């Protein structure tokens, strides 16, 4: 009798932890969808849902990278402005230098990886706390984006195919930007679950000292995680430049906070060791669905921010309550 009760215990706690967190976020998304569909006839139409999907693309891609970083118990404040810097570099490559579009994309990705690697170097080699290192990078990237672009937007009018990268449709009526987000998410989930990099990200977040004592080169792997975050910033840079058909150097501030919010709503623990890509994607959708729905209900933009902020706090609080019960 006693042993029957106790063998059930581990199963119960598994259900309570991972699965429950996913269900919680997913349930919340469905609830929000149901609420807005009920409140407005315009909300649950394909055109509007397409808008939500499109609006999630950039933040979702940024959040993928941030997920890895937060799993290591770190933080990255620079993803937004690094994204802008990447977009500007693409503009320079394609518009100013007249290079082909694939080269422009490559430039953006490499710029992101470079910025992420520098973050990683500051953090793991120089011992600067992630918050400060990436705060510095946030400002530097913003400044560089403005300097390189001459404080003016760079338009892609000479490269007509560039806009189609994200706004065209390959599959049904779904904008390519959304396809890019989903493919990126699948790759991210693969990296997190099936590769060495993902395993070490979790291990470092769970117990960094133990990971180091196990002979893992913590400094290198942590740098790699920040470089991966930079890669996703680079990808987001391409997507946003293509969507706007221009590289807007003044853009980017605030994107990092939306990305962090998406990750946190998705159940990734800020203390490290725990997090899922699926959760992050759901988190990103919750944010853009809320923004979209509130706008349809004519809630002023200022109040939309208040609601999003409250949701972030609620999500983290629910997570804390759940953990305390365990």
């Amino acid at each position, binding site marked *: 009798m006693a042993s029957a009760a*106790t063998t059930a215990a581990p199963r119960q706690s598994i259900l309570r932890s991972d699965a429950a967190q996913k269900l919680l976020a997913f349930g919340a998304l469905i609830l929000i969808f149901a609420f807005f569909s009920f409140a407005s006839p315009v909300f649950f139409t394909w055109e509007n849902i397409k808008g939500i999907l499109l609006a999630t693309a950039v933040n979702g891609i940024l959040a993928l990278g941030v997920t890895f970083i937060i799993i290591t118990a770190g933080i990255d404040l620079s993803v937004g402005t690094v994204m802008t810097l990447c977009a500007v570099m693409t503009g320079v490559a394609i518009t100013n230098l007249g290079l082909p579009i694939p080269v422009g994309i490559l430039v953006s990705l490499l710029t992101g990886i470079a910025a992420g690697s520098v973050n990683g170097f500051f953090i793991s080699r120089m011992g600067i706390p992630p918050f400060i290192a990436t705060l510095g990078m946030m400002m530097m990237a913003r400044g560089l984006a403005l300097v390189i672009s001459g404080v003016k937007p760079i338009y892609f009018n000479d490269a007509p195919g560039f806009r189609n990268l994200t706004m065209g449709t390959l599959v049904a009526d779904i904008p390519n930007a959304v396809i890019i987000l989903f493919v990126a998410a699948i790759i991210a989930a693969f990296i997190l679950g099936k590769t*060495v990099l993902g*395993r070490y990200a979790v*291990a470092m977040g769970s117990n960094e000292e133990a*990971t180091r004592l196990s*002979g893992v080169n913590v400094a290198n792997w942590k740098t790699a995680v920040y470089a991966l975050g930079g890669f996703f910033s680079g990808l987001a840079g391409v997507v946003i430049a293509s969507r706007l058909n221009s590289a807007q150097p003044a853009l980017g501030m605030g994107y990092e906070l939306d990305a962090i919010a998406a990750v946190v709503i998705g159940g990734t623990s800020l203390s490290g060791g725990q997090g899922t890509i699926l959760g992050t994607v759901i988190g990103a959708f919750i944010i853009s669905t809320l923004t979209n729905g509130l706008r349809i209900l004519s809630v002023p933009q200022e109040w939309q921010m208040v609601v999003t902020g409250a949701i972030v706090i609620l999500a983290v609080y629910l997570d804390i309550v759940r953990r305390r019960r365990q």
Partner: protein
Amino acid sequence: MDTVLVKMEGIDKSFPGVRALINAQFELRAGEVHALVGENGAGKSTLMKILSGIYTKDAGHIYYLGEETEIDGPREAQHLGISMIHQELNLMPHLTLAQNVFIGREPRGALPFMLDERKINAQTEALFERMNLRLNPGTKASELTVAKQQMVEIAKALSFDSQVLIMDEPTAALTNAEIDELFRIIRDLRSKGVGIVYISHRLEELKQICDRITVMRDGQYVDTVDAASIPIDRIISMMVGRTIYESAPELPENRDTETVLEVRNLNRGKELIDVNFSLKKGEILGFAGLMGAGRTEVARAIFGADPVDSGEIYLYGKRVGIHHPRTAVQNGLGYLSEDRKRYGLATGLNVEINNALASMGQFLSSVGVVNDSKMEERAEQYVETLAIKTPSVNQLVKNLSGGNQQKVVIGKWLTADSDILIFDEPTRGIDVGAKSEIYHLLNELAGQGKSIIMISSELPEILRMSHRIIVMCEGRITGELDATEATQERIMTYATMRSVLTDQDDDNHSTDDAAPAAVTVSQK
């Protein structure tokens, strides 16, 4: 058999404020179990951490199979075939057991950066089988008891095919049945020519399992002897050397005074189960138990640092609700954490400020300005009475030695007029000389009518210092002993008295040792 695997000579190592190793030496042969003993702070762990690449030596030579070697990091040590099982558990709680065992050297899949999860699990399963461990490789490490986690760490070290295996207090959290299992594994490894360094405080174990014993004291090498022929008291006298506190300090006799603190039915989940005890004025009440037995949890609950599910606390017969450390301090409680640097001191500040930290109110003028001269005066007073070795009260606490840091914490609580002091591992990381000073100080405080709860994992310390001893295991109080009737063996019996229920749910093979535990419970 007689191949020398490792030879360490002239090893020096200093940390800020402490000379941890002075010209230390050690030799390990293939196929021997070599015990490394000494009191806390003797330098055993430090020496072995140098061998396993965690610390770098300041001076000295390490020879591996006769060749001089520099070991720059844990990875190099692993490559040489040296692995260490640490005293503190070193698993990643969010990873599965298999993932923990293979961290850093995962079998790769189709592509070099891909993990082969199936292989990781299969190999771990085989490894557990070899060790008779009935654990599922897919379980998360956080779901295991401390003892099981320890077994997993041992499995991890074995999976390296190490030639040198260092075990730092491997039995500290194990039951007798588990210890037997561990010894079986150790003997098996020895017969395969592995050299095993065995650090332990349980001297009676050494006779059972070790071939040679090296004794260290105050960071220095004392002697290496044959385990079979040497009597245990010889080892002890070599360990304590100058017999600094071999004679038990006189305990102040204050037995039949009033009860100052009473704790009734303290409960919190699985961590605290029906904890009941009382503390008398002028008494030193020892709390013994294994790692994770719940002693620190009791202390933190009484002090209001952690919430409880239920329970009552009475001070001087009056029920009090302590839900916050602030209330505890106001009620005259002081808590000296086992982790001084994290919870006890602001190490970046000076002695004077640390001394006043728990009672700033005393040093404020009516307009809320800090009265510096009063603070300094009070700090100087305690520097003198507690014999804190510091050039001045303006010295930063991080520059003091462990013993003197501990005294600063004591001074802090005395400044706050605490009458009930909870010492959590008061001599951890403190060298032998300073240790005896702390002991004298505890006795003096008790003599002055302060009541003391002393949590300690060192049985000799518990036996030497306590009027009464409470033993905990898995969140419950399993025994209470008077100083006159307490022995190491009796404390250990209580400390390993796991509940029948937990034995069954852990696995089946330990049911045989659950039976005697049940008998002892009913005897009591």
